């Protein structure tokens, strides 16, 4: 295994989804390649920190704000009742 092959398999190795034989190949390569071993250690530590990080939650007001600006009563281009009742019957272009 060379370093390019190693990099392709690294994600699956860290996910634990590699077949045993492939996993052993990765581990043997790390024993002989200091830079790939260092890369793995760096990636592992970054992953560990991200796993421990708190999730970002939107401010509660954001939902209200979005629904205020884009209300559902006009979903999918539904035309307002007054337009359907009064304008469209008399003006053919109003359907457009």
């Amino acid at each position: 295994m060379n370093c390019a092959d190693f990099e392709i398999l690294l994600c699956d190795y860290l996910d634990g989804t590699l077949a045993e034989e492939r996993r052993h190949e990765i581990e043997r390569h790390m024993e002989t390649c200091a830079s790939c071993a260092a890369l793995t250690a760096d990636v592992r530590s970054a992953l560990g920190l991200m796993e421990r990080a708190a999730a970002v939650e939107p401010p509660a007001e954001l939902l209200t704000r979005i629904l205020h600006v884009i209300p559902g009563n006009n979903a999918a281009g539904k035309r307002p009742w007054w337009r359907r009742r009064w304008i469209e019957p008399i003006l053919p272009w109003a359907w457009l």
Partner: protein
Amino acid sequence: MASVAQLAAPQAKWTWAPACAATEGSWRNRVDSDAQLVERCLSGDETAWEDLVRQHTRRVYSICYRFTGRDSESQDLSQEVFLRIFRNLRSFRSGEGSFGVWLTRLTRNLLIDNYRRTRAERATDSIEEQLGMLEEKTVAFGHADSVLAGREASEVIQNALRRLSPELRETVILRDLEEMEYREIAQVLNVPEGTVKSRLNRGRAELARVLKRQKVAI
């Protein structure tokens, strides 16, 4: 329609739950209900739109916030994402992928557009300012004898993510912070899965190097 400026812009909140709150299972189970909600929206069901927005606001805001690092900008972008979804709902084809992937692709495209548009603005930040920020974070979080977690870890990551190129940053956010599958990320970014994995390796390694430079104990 109210303007963005007329509306309040409260601060982002953090929770102590793990970063990847939505599990792979819940993401998958959502696919069917999303398709139904879209159908209901298109048939004129007024509550369906509200449900759709309610279910996806966290993901959209979280991606925007992780990418930009700014609450106010993330709220504006989240609103713009839902406006685009609203206008383009008829173009969503459930047979061509999940609503979640479609929504994430739209969010990502908007973020990249915004990144390009604001490039000049960011370039005006002086090197001194950036160094100052770096030192400040090092002082605040550089406790070599303690393990970072929760909100502190989240802020450290946020600061480090800003130093990644957009293509590495978006890949790390989608995989490690939003827990999307490689196949889904490949669909969002329109690149092969191998490219996603390669960017992910480089992004994670770069993130670790940034944190080391900041002398953060990870």
